[in-house]
């Protein structure tokens, strides 16, 4: 991070240091995130999680990484060599490139791009190529299936994601991430656009391929999907990229919807406060994503698609439309909150109604004459007793 704060003076050296800092950040954060995820999953499942390597198992993932680096780099004999070996990079590089423009505080970023938001979306959208390459080149049916699923899912969910971010950019009047944060000032955007926030979270979950959208890598169906034939360092690159994406989307979410390094109590936060704020907000996202992963089951591919195209995209366009109305007619933001909130309620209602949530009653046939007459003859199957 040194490069970010001190101007070295030489543009090449500066960029190099920035990139190095990013690589370090990526690696460390990915290791930490993996550890965190294991811990959270353990606690949700009332386990302890990694405890042995380092205090509270903190170094467990580092040890794992070392092990992975040391592992033999296997390649199936019938795999398509070049595509197979290049696929991890095709996933890794876009993810890494997207991190370049994300500002961490008001003054810290490798590059402040005018088109920052657009850049992040465009570049992360390239990751599907890697999945498809990995799936195709592995010469494995599970991998191919997973690769196709991944590509279809990523492309589909990019649409609501982009449209929602467009809605944000509309009101912020800029695609520059820093300016979006500045625009939010005291009241973060998710207050005004709950619907957009919701769509962003769902789309991010899908882009990250986490439950309930982990269809491409579904363990119980396609056994890890495109990564099935990978091992060692290449596999860990996929893993690294996946957790870096988690970081990127969390950062993006906290910047775009939670107000980044700003907070409601004051606008001129100091550097350390800024870092703290963005860390906390990003952690909220990360914790939420991890929490969801262990609370929900996986959707089916057709359900995933229809949810995207029939629910999310129309709602995202609704959000854009509402923003347009507010902008053109200069209606108060409260209107946006109301309508967007109504849209969110609609989204939830759709989820509630689209599925057959009618509580099913089990027919209880009493055994031995009267049966357990103490209990009601029919037990509400969904009751939690």
């Amino acid at each position, binding site marked *: 991070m040194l490069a970010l704060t001190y101007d070295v003076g030489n543009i090449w050296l500066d960029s190099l240091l920035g990139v190095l800092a990013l690589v370090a950040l990526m690696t460390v954060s990915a290791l930490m995130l993996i550890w965190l995820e294991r811990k959270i999953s353990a606690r949700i499942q009332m386990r302890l999680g990694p405890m042995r390597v380092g205090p509270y198992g903190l170094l467990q993932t580092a040890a794992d990484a070392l092990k992975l680096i040391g592992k033999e780099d296997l390649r199936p004999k019938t795999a398509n060599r070049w*595509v197979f070996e290049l696929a991890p990079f095709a996933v890794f590089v876009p993810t890494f490139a997207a991190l370049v423009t994300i500002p961490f505080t008001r003054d810290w970023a490798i590059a402040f*791009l005018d088109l920052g938001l657009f850049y992040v979306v*465009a570049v992360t959208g390239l990751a*599907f190529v890697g999945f498809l*390459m990995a799936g195709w080149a592995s010469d494995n049916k599970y991998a*191919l299936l997973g690769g196709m699923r991944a590509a279809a899912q990523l*492309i589909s969910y990019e649409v609501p994601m*982009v449209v929602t971010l467009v809605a944000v950019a509309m009101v912020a009047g800029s695609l520059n991430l820093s300016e979006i944060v500045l625009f939010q000032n005291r009241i973060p955007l998710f207050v005004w656009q709950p619907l957009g926030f919701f769509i962003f979270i769902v789309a991010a979950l899908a882009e990250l391929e986490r439950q309930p959208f982990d269809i491409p890598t579904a363990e119980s169906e396609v056994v890890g999907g495109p990564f099935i034939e990978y091992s060692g360092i290449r596999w860990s690159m996929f893993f690294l990229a996946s957790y870096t994406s988690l970081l990127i989307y969390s950062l993006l979410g906290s910047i775009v919807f939670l107000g980044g390094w700003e907070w409601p109590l004051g606008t001129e936060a100091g550097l350390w406060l800024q870092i703290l704020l963005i860390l906390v907000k990003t952690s909220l996202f990360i914790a939420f994503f991890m929490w969801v992963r262990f609370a929900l089951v996986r959707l089916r591919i057709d359900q995933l698609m229809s949810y995207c195209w029939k629910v999310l995209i129309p709602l995202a366009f609704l959000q854009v439309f509402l923003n347009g109305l507010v902008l053109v007619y200069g209606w108060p933001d409260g209107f946006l909150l109301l309508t967007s909130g109504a849209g969110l309620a609609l989204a939830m209602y759709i989820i509630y109604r689209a599925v057959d949530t009618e509580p099913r009653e089990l027919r209880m046939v009493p055994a031995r004459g009267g049966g357990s007459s103490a209990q009601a003859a029919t037990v509400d199957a969904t009751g939690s007793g």
Partner: protein
Amino acid sequence: MTVAQLIFYVIAALAVAGGLGVVLARNTVYAALFLILALLAVAGVYILLASEFLALVQVLIYAGAVTVLMLFALMLTRVGDLPETMTGAQWPLAAVVSSLLMGLLVTTVATSDWPGDADGTITRIPFEQLGEALFRQWAVPFEIASLVLLIALVGAIVLARDEDDDVEESE
């Protein structure tokens, strides 16, 4: 040779390499991947031409969405990856004609006198201005384009639909 020129040559080389890969690769998926390379290189060219917005559009839509369709189609149609069926029989003639065409074009470019060529100075157009122009001056073409997209979407769905699916759904 300035740094910018060096970058240009690298990117141009990548673009040409990608293009050659598309037309020469013996494997369809390779061709698609080369196409992605070429498209990304063209995006780089756009950046050199100071149109970052266009470059990002190129990355997002061309490299990010169009090629996935092609890859899908390649995998779905499972066109025989046999190398001997990849190239048609008229390739020698085609090569001659194409080279002739290239020669003609390059000659034309070289012999013509282009405006704004003197100092190699280009103008960066703020994308706000681009948006203004797109939605005011070019509003009608823009709407037509959206209509075309819609029609293409509907058409593609109708065309690609399997009749069996219809039967299943109607049941």
